[in-house]
């Protein structure tokens, strides 16, 4: 919302300067986004007289001028052909910033003659391209009357600051200058001037029929019309054109400009029809018919649909209610009879129609926020008066369809709530005065509970909290004392629960393992999503910002692969990245997994004098996954590894960690076909851990207490075994079989060699185990050790068919 200081002063009797007004606006919640004060840039420029202009001794084209700018004589060297003795001009002393050239003026000597300022041209002031000479009485007649030393900005019409204020959607009243003036008056910035009473007695009955269709009363409860005959339409007077151009509006014709003026001045949109062009001489407000078209004033044609409100004549829709008028019935310089419309349109319908058709207009902006229902008639009267004043003619009596809707309501109010909700004590009288200044009527109530009648222009006020805000914002939020929150206990309790603690630990574990944390988009391309198992239609965005950000990600890995690709393209091939974040299975509240995913790609490090780099493989990914699972508190010893990872992994070099049917993690090398589909160069190894699937141990009764540690005083014994098994038998099966042979004595079983060779026979492999026996009660005898060894050999044979290698 833009307006000028002079426009504001039409409504507000104030001595306040522009900066004070700007500060007050922001403090009221009318946030000033910009104040363009042209006078500020022109402040150094003063009216001056050239006492004498003489030729420069060393330059033919230059003159040396003795200038009186109000505070003593100054010598200036001037190159303008029209610099002459006795003229009046505009002077800038040394030190001034010249807006048109961007130069900061310095005192200097020009061809040996001192020059302490400048007589300026219009171009140098940034006003026009005129640079044939300096400003004089010929180009600026106002100079003739102006006293020497006076600021030049007002003479140039450049003394009117333009405010640009962001109006929040709850304040339709402040979409007009008058509403803004009312707020400022309440805040003590001046006095709100009364609006002139302007009823215009009509000279005749309006011959134009007006009706609101029965089913359209909710959409348009009130329509006031008036015919003005014999008007003369043409360019607006200067003051009106200036007012509109100052806020960025293009003057069109006086009739149209008047409607725009009321829109901005009183938040009261109006429309004018050329009465001669109204088909059948009657207007009806009705719902649009499906497929009906409107040639609008913005030179575009719209196809209308049910639910839209139109003003129609015998030929069809002529205007889209509350949004935009139609071309065929519009006024132009030939218009002599004009039909003025002041109506009310329903905010929700106006917003929906405007959105559907993509029309932004000053009228829509106001109607969708809510136009003052009690000012329709007054607006029509005032506009009629202005039309008569500027265009002549004679007005009909108003024709009214519908009625002013019942807008009157009261809100129960306890002044004490300003302290208990707002946190600041404001004397009751002061609170009442504030509300009254804003147009509220405070009525008596019982005891501390008063009744406050809400003015017609404040649809946003619905309850007590709204009144607290009114008082606070006028009193100023600065008046609210900052009060510390009451502490809950002296030692603060942990803020995070187990899941957040896990996420944080996992992040820092992975970073400590050398992976960099990435944060990538939650959405990706549909085809990539499909490649990573996304088949849920409920996760495709209806209005994606780009097609490659169209579907909620089913996995994080594709984003990390893409990040690795982009880094490689920048010459950073050695990539280790992880992300802890959401992956989506469906749109329900429980369809979101928290996943820790990581990726290692590239050579595995720089070339080094001592150690050759090694690309990451499935075991690196497994180690990362295990570290995450451990950090997340998963029962790592009980996890099974099965080689049935999804198909974006290498089929032979990937696996999952599972607890029964629940897959906690998957890891391995990425499938080369998937990588090439993503334009990424492999190999890459990655993992995905579903943190929300990791079972959380129930809060132990003992709290942080650990089980008792029992240490054996006896030496552990190590024995090695090599078993020959079928190649298909997993090493894990052999280890488990060995371990199960004596759960009491066997403390550890480690694989220290795996060997495939022709000597073992086709399809056979050797798995070598180091078994650690930990005696509990006494040192083991050779016989006891042999007995355990035999049980190990027997159990491995039974469980896996393995034989001890000879």
């Amino acid at each position: 919302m833009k307006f000028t200081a002079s426009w504001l002063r039409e409504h507000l009797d104030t001595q306040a300067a522009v900066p004070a007004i700007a500060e007050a606006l922001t403090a009221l919640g009318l946030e000033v986004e910009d104040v363009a004060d042209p006078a500020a840039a022109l402040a150094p420029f003063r009216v001056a007289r050239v006492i004498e202009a003489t030729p420069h001794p060393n330059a033919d084209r230059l003159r040396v001028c003795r200038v009186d700018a109000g505070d003593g004589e100054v010598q200036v060297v001037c190159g303008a052909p029209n610099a002459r003795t006795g003229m009046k001009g505009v002077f800038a002393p040394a030190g001034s910033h010249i807006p048109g050239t961007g130069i900061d003026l310095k005192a200097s000597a020009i061809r040996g003659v001192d020059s302490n300022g400048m007589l300026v041209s219009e171009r140098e002031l940034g006003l026009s391209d005129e640079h044939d000479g300096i400003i004089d009485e010929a180009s600026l007649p106002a100079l003739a009357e102006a006293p020497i030393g006076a600021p030049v900005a007002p003479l140039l019409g450049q003394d009117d600051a333009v405010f640009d204020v962001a109006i929040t959607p709850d304040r339709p009243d402040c979409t007009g200058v008058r509403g803004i003036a009312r707020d400022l008056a309440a805040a003590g910035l001046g006095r709100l001037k009364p609006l002139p009473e302007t009823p215009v007695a009509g000279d005749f009955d309006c011959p134009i029929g007006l009706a609101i269709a029965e089913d359209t009363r909710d959409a348009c409860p009130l329509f006031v019309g008036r015919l003005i005959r014999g008007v003369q339409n043409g360019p607006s007077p200067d003051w009106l054109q200036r007012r509109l151009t100052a806020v960025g509006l293009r003057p069109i014709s006086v009739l149209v400009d008047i409607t725009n003026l009321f829109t901005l001045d009183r938040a009261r949109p109006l429309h004018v029809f050329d009465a001669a062009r109204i088909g059948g001489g009657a207007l009806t407000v009705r719902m649009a018919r499906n497929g009906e078209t409107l040639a609008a004033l913005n030179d575009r044609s719209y196809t209308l649909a049910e639910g839209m409100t139109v003003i129609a004549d015998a030929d069809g829709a002529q205007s889209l209610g509350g949004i935009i008028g139609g071309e065929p019935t519009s006024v132009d310089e030939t218009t002599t009879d004009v039909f003025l419309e002041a109506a009310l349109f329903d905010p929700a319908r106006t917003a929906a129609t405007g959105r559907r058709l993509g029309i932004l207009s000053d009228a829509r902006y106001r109607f969708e926020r809510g136009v003052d229902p009690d000012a329709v008639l007054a607006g029509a009267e005032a506009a009629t008066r202005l039309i008569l004043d500027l265009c002549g003619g004679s007005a009909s009596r108003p024709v009214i369809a519908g009625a002013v809707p019942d807008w009157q309501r009261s809100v129960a109010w306890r002044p004490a709530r300003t302290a208990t909700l707002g946190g600041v004590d404001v004397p009751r009288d002061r609170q009442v005065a504030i509300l009254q200044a804003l147009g509220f009527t405070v009525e008596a109530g019982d005891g501390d509970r008063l009744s406050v009648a809400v003015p017609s222009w404040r649809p946003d006020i619905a309850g007590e909290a709204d009144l607290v805000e009114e008082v606070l914002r006028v009193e100023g939020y600065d008046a609210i004392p900052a009060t510390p929150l009451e502490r809950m206990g002296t030692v603060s309790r942990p803020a995070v629960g187990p899941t957040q603690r896990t996420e944080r630990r996992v992040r820092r574990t992975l970073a400590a393992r050398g992976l960099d944390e990435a944060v990538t988009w939650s959405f990706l391309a549909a085809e990539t999503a499909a490649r990573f198992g996304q088949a849920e239609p409920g996760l495709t965005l209806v209005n994606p910002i780009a097609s490659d950000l169209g579907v909620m990600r089913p996995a994080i890995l594709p984003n990390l692969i893409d990040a690795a690709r982009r880094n490689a393209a920048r010459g950073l091939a050695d990539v280790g990245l992880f992300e802890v974040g959401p992956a989506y299975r469906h749109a329900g509240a429980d369809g979101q997994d928290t996943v820790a995913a990581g990726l290692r790609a590239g050579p595995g490090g720089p070339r080094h004098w001592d150690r050759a780099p090694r690309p990451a493989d499935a075991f690196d990914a497994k180690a990362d996954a295990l570290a995450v699972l451990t950090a997340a508190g998963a029962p790592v010893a009980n996890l099974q590894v099965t080689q049935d990872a999804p198909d974006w992994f290498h089929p032979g070099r990937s696996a999952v960690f599972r607890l029964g049917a629940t897959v906690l993690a998957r890891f391995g090398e990425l499938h080369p076909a998937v990588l090439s589909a993503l334009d990424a160069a492999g190999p890459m190894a990655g993992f995905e851990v579903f943190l929300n699937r990791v079972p959380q141990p129930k809060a132990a009764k003992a709290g942080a207490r650990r089980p008792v540690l029992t240490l054996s005083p006896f030496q552990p014994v190590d024995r090695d075994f090599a078993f020959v098994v079928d190649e298909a038998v997993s090493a894990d099966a052999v280890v488990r079989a060995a371990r199960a042979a004596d759960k009491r004595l066997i403390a550890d079983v480690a694989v220290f060699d795996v060997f495939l060779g022709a000597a073992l026979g086709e399809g056979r492999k050797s798995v070598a185990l180091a078994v650690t026996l930990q005696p509990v009660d006494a040192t083991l005898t050779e016989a006891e050790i042999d007995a355990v060894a035999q049980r190990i050999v027997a159990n491995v044979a039974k469980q896996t068919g393995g034989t001890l290698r000879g």
Partner: protein
Amino acid sequence: MEDLAALRDELIGAVEAAGDLPALDQARVAALGRKGRITDLMKTLGTLDAEARRRAGQELNALKDAVAAAVEQRQVVLAGRDLDRRLAAERVDLTLPVRPERPGRIHPISQTIDEMVAIFAEMGFAVAEGPDVEDDWHNFEALNFPPGHPAREMQDTFYLPDRADGARMVLRTHTSPVQIRTMVSQKPPIRIVAPGRTYRSDYDMTHTPMFHQIEGLVVDETTHMGHLKGCLVEFARAFFQVDDLPLRFRPSFFPFTEPSAEVDIGCSRAGGEIKIGNHGDWLEILGCGMVHPNVLEACGIDSTRYQGFAFGMGIERPAMLKYGIPDLRTFFESDLRWLKHYGFVPLDIPNVAFGLTS
């Protein structure tokens, strides 16, 4: 008996003359070995009478001990000399670089969230969470955004297909639906913060379609707007580590708070660079207000008894200001050079007692 003194000189002389460990061993065997000179003399003791045997035995034993001691002494010397020689041969060039390690880094967004949570934890807030995919009720309606209200257009919403029951599904446009989920599932007093991902359909120099917010919510019977101010002033000063940081509360509008405020912090923009502090200019950082009675009622909380405040703040912007990160879009590019430069070492865990990140 031979002249033991001469023998002693001879044997010890041989030990001391040994130039390396094998030579020393030869000298030891020659004296003390099974066929050594002293061993041989020991064997002759049996031929002597008792008194002579006793005396000769003593002398021989003394000689044996002396030679053994000399061997031991010589051994230390020779072993030390050998070790010195070996170590000299083992010299390496320690100007060579170490084996490569890759230090990982924590993303500034995670670090900022951890910092913010650490500060709010000091004020008694717990962390709450909610899903990114929300229904219209949680994201708008329960937050007092009526259907068709222009305030909905303040937020460029991403839509998903309607749910089977007809509910309109969206990507949450703010973390405020976590307020609703918390108030529906917990009874007051409530004091939570909710950091998380949020989404708006906007992509330019200063907007990304995904960004992060942290929501705050306090509901009890007495918390008023002064507490909101106190809480945010303390937070901002702790987070930006500026003790006299001024905050400015301006009236504003959010459907779910009444009264509502936007909050600016002090800054300077001299030289095109934003500096946080008491420098006379202002920079908006968050929106807040007292929870709207309609929101409390939508969650089944008696608005005549309970009240409180809520705030919502971006994560990226404060992070940019605090750590001097110039471009929002770079947060999501996963550029390794950027992550290394702006990221945090994993052990730098924000904590009020041990200091936030500095």
